[in-house]
């Protein structure tokens, strides 16, 4: 049996473990710092790689060349602008002649137009006839047109009278277009 007593203290295992862990943390921290630095460097080089000035210089060159064609450019822009506006006019202007044509085609033979007023929204037909059946025919025809929404959308009888002086029936009809 050994009777020697070891007076030298043994290395603290816990301290060793902490020192080792400290080294690992140091390494991680340095890597973190290096990564941040690397990212900053990459971004910096990317920014430097974009040369805005050269693009602007090229733009100026093209603009200078284009100045020779300035008159054509203005004309072409105006041309397209006018095409657009003319197209809009042709598509939106009221087609009054076709309304007048449509109404005149439906007027009975013995009916005399005293007044015909057509605008974009309504049409008024006033006239006279010696025959009541002609007046009835006109009302029937126009009522049919309104029912079928052919040219006119509605029909209102605004007046119907008989004048003894000339033995004529007078009628006035108003329609919405």
């Amino acid at each position, binding site marked *: 049996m050994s009777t020697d007593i070891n007076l030298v203290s043994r290395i603290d295992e816990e301290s060793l473990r*902490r*020192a080792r862990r*400290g080294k690992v*943390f*140091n390494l*991680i*921290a*340095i890597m*973190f*710092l290096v*990564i*941040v*630095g690397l990212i*900053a460097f990459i*971004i*910096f080089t*990317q*920014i430097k790689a974009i040369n*805005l000035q050269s*693009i*602007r210089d*090229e*733009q100026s060159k*093209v*603009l200078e060349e*284009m100045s020779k*064609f300035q008159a*054509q*450019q*203005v*004309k*072409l*822009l*105006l*041309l*397209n*602008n*006018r*095409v657009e506006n*003319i*197209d*809009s*006019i*042709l598509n*939106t*202007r*009221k087609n*009054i*002649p076709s309304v*007048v*044509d449509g109404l*005149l085609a439906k007027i009975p033979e013995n009916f005399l*137009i*005293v*007044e*015909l*007023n*057509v*605008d*974009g929204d309504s049409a008024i037909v006033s006239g006279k006839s010696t025959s009541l059946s002609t007046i009835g025919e006109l009302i029937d025809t126009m009522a049919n047109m309104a029912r079928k929404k052919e040219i006119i959308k509605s029909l209102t009888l605004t007046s119907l009278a008989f004048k003894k002086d000339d033995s004529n029936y007078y009628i006035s009809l108003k329609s919405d277009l």
Partner: protein
Amino acid sequence: MNEKVNLDLLSIKFIFDKNKYYILPVVIVLISVFLLFKFVIPQYDSLIAIREQAKTEKLKLNTLKENLKLLTKVNEEDLNSRFDILTSALPLDKNVVLLLNAIYSSAQKTGVEIGPFSFSLEDTTRGQDEGNIPVIKLSLPINSDAVAANDFIKTMMETVPLSQVDSFHVKEEGTLIDLGFYYLPQEVLDYDLTLQLTPVSKEGLLLIDQMNKFKEESAILQLPTAPVASPSAY
């Protein structure tokens, strides 16, 4: 409850000895985080902004190059003739000669007789439905029946400058037509050099052909020498 913790020097030393290996890495990480937020992230934001700016400038440059390419290909004669046709249909100003020519050439074709009329060039109301294109309004008396007057307005609608019939009023003594002649001054156009130029579309070319036919139909006639028209203001 107010509890006091007593830390003596030995305790502090003990805690320091126990954690001294972590102090340096923690400091390094904190510095890195500081650098990340203070410099790297703003730098990244500016990179994105510069890239966006470069993209916009490149697009502008491409547009300019395409415009230049288009302009070098444009036939100047065609452009001028198309421009003339369209400015006859929709004049740049209040062109009285074109307006009177349209009226009298239509009257001559349809055989109607135009009565005395007047109009004001000051009063140019804008059509609400027609994209606010200004018009010169006038009332035209016609000494003819409804059918002839209707033929006249049909012809007017296929004549340059373009016009619109606002109302058609037939009475026993004659017909009164309210007309509006369109015109569009140049300053209405927004002019920007970097605007994308486009050649005239197929539909546009068809429209120009149609306007050319209208123009040929309303070829300048000899205006009546008698003072039939009396514009009230010039």
